């Protein structure tokens, strides 16, 4: 039924990550984990998938000896997100 919906985005956690990042310039891994109420392991896997699709960039740094992962949405990601929302609206017949 939802064959036109981008399979990368049509996953609850990946969509949640993208929805958070669309309104922010960048966000730390811990922030995304807290807001999406997900586990670190699952979130890492989904973030990697979004990164592989070119929808987000992931920057890994060290701050005070702790790893710090920052995610940022790419222009390709914004485009995909907008198309996904458009496809949803078509399903729901919203103009």
């Amino acid at each position: 039924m939802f064959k036109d919906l981008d399979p990368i985005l049509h996953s609850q956690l990946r969509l949640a990550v993208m929805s958070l990042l669309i309104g922010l310039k960048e966000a730390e891994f811990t922030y995304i984990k807290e807001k999406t109420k997900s586990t670190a392991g699952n979130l890492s896997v989904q973030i990697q998938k979004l990164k592989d699709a070119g929808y987000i960039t992931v920057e890994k740094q060290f701050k005070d000896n702790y790893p710090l992962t920052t995610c940022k949405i790419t222009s390709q990601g914004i485009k995909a997100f907008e198309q996904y929302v458009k496809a949803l609206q078509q399903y729901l017949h919203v103009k």
Partner: protein
Amino acid sequence: MQDNTGFSPQESLRLIDSMIKEARNKYSENGHLYLFWGWVILFCSAANFVLAYFNLYDKPYQVWWLTAAAGVYQFFYILKHKTNRATKSYTDLLYGYIWLTFGVLLIIAIIITSIKGNWDFLYPQILALYGMPVFLSGIILRFIPLKAGGIVCWLLAIVASLISAQYHLLLLVIAIIVAWLIPGYMLQAKYKKENK
């Protein structure tokens, strides 16, 4: 939240909506520095006025050196709290640039005034300029006390150009209380309530 792919378009939209609301316009700091600077500038203005008006000291403007010490404090405060910021929003970015613009305009106004040598118009200019970041902050944060504060600054700028320059600092004191400290504390209270 699981890696669930079998959900409806309605659920999708609800999820998008809830996440966007989570990230929207969150004040990413508690306003400590903003209020701190309010008190510093209030103290300097009031001290400068009292020292000059009652002829207590021949270089009353030297109290403004306190802002340099405040700058050092701000530097270390930011250094200490930098790691606590988990996100950077476009609001933060815009907010930063608005204050940067204000800072640049303020420096230009001071340079022009010092070249022209007419210091009587410095404070009306500062009041007019200061209304800008306050008013725009009110627009961004959708916070009426800040918008009103900005307008008060602009009115005080006009009043300042009509009265004797020796009272300008008093108008600055009023502007800081009305457009800085009062909305600042109201915003902090709102922030604390939202982050409970």
